[in-house]
């Protein structure tokens, strides 16, 4: 019994040490270990196949719909690391791969409680600033996304193929999208939908483009830069 008490005392001392750790404020914040984030992010850089038409970003995602994102800030925080990471309107951030932050055992920290937000790694097609997308280029970009996802998550993407793209615009915007082929042009409608295909939010004007019936040489033109150009993989 005495031995058991000694063990318990030891554990209590250990927990007391934890509570005095300098990382104490993290208990009040949503965070992700940078070492774990690094492992998830570095695959995009290191794994083969061309990726010049696509991009990887980390996204902060609300666990409950409608959670306020007003004043949301993301920091890379460690004893030797302090970096503000700007979030775009869809809560994406570019997270750099830094040896210093890895060695520091830093964390990606949000100024929100732990249960409110989570972190995801997203791979999407890089939007074009001029709003002009050649169909052949969109097909190639979608194939790059699929090839990467098949390497990372083969069981989920086995026997899947690219069928199109979806372009999600900021909430409240009124995007105009047009398909141009030879001399003809046809407007593409937008409807409220999710930022990424298959998800449940319905806040964004989304333009869907399925390329089955389209001829090569078709061009998609949009006004405004979409938040996300996502590959539609089915």
């Amino acid at each position, binding site marked *: *019994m005495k*031995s*058991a008490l*000694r*063990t318990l005392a*030891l*554990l209590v001392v*250990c*927990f007391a040490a*934890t509570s005095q*750790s300098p*990382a104490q404020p*993290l*208990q009040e914040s*949503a*965070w*992700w*270990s*940078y*070492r*774990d*984030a*690094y*492992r*998830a992010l*570095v*695959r995009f850089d*290191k*794994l*083969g196949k061309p990726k010049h038409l696509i991009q990887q970003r980390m996204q902060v995602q609300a666990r409950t719909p409608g959670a306020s994102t007003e004043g949301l800030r993301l920091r890379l925080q*460690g004893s030797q690391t302090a970096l503000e990471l700007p979030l775009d309107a869809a809560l994406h951030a570019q997270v750099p*791969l830094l*040896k210093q932050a*890895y*060695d520091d*055992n*830093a*964390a990606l920290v949000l100024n929100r409680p*732990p249960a409110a937000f*989570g*972190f*995801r*790694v*997203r*791979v999407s097609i890089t939007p074009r600033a001029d709003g002009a997308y050649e169909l052949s280029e969109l097909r190639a970009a979608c194939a790059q996304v699929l090839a990467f996802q098949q*390497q*990372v*998550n*083969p*069981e989920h993407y086995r026997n899947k193929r690219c069928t199109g793209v979806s372009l999600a615009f900021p909430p409240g915007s009124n995007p105009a999208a047009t398909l141009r082929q030879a001399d003809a042009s046809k407007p593409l409608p937008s409807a409220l939908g999710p930022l990424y295909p298959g998800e449940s939010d319905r806040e964004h004007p989304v333009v869907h483009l399925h390329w089955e019936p389209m001829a090569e040489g078709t061009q998609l033109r949009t006004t405004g830069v979409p938040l996300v150009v996502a590959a539609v993989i089915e």
Partner: protein
Amino acid sequence: MKPLLTTLSLLCLAGSAQAQAPVFEPMPEGSQDIFLGLGAGYRPRYEGAREQRLRAEPLIQASWSNGLFVSGLQAGWHLSESLAPAWPRAEWGPLLNLQPPRGQQGRSWFADSLGTLSGTAMEPGLANDPRGNRLQGMDRVDACLEGGGFFNLRPAAAWRLTQSLLGGTGACSGSLRWGADLQVLVPTPAPHHSLSVSAGLSWANARYTQTYFGVTEQESARSRNPVHRPDGGVHEVRAQLRWNWLLQPDWVLSTALEFKRLQGSAARSPLVERAGATHLSTALVYRF
């Protein structure tokens, strides 16, 4: 691509002899990922003992970017790539394992022991078995180093089949054993928690089972145990549930519940009071 999957690397925060090579995760060149912890384990005092002991147990898992690792009482070197371009992925390399000694008090898993928790035992190591301490009169089995290799197969991110083949040196010279475990990372909705289940078995040659489960004529004459010469074969099956809680980026609470059952002629050894045993351990671990 949920970040929880990357906590696979924490699967192996085990202090037992069944610790596996940690997953070879990518990290910056020259970096390392080191976990050191201290906790308590509630285990049989030797394989086959009825009496369970509570004792302090250190936990260690260290990985370096060049592939070297230490995991529990094992050390090895990943010779495969940390980022293979396709699945299934294979991990392989040389492996060393330290077998702790077994004296009449049982296994000395680690140097620091807090003694027995058994309320009926009068002194540590004397079980309430009608035949008394079955290790009384048995030769001490010294600590020994086993060398060999590991070959792990990962069909997908959350699945891993680990295998190791180890041959003994010194006190366990001539012994050979092979172990295989299938590990699955169970998705959990809670952030910072990972849950894994694994099941496996161990095969050993007769030299190994004789060392830990056999009774020689001389030992029989000194003890109350009849002579026993176990054969080689599958001598253990096991299943484990492990829960890792990343309390903070640098603190982990690692808890494991494991059931092991001796098999075959090892289970029929006169040293074995109970073939099946439950092991429970928990430790607070600092990530350097």
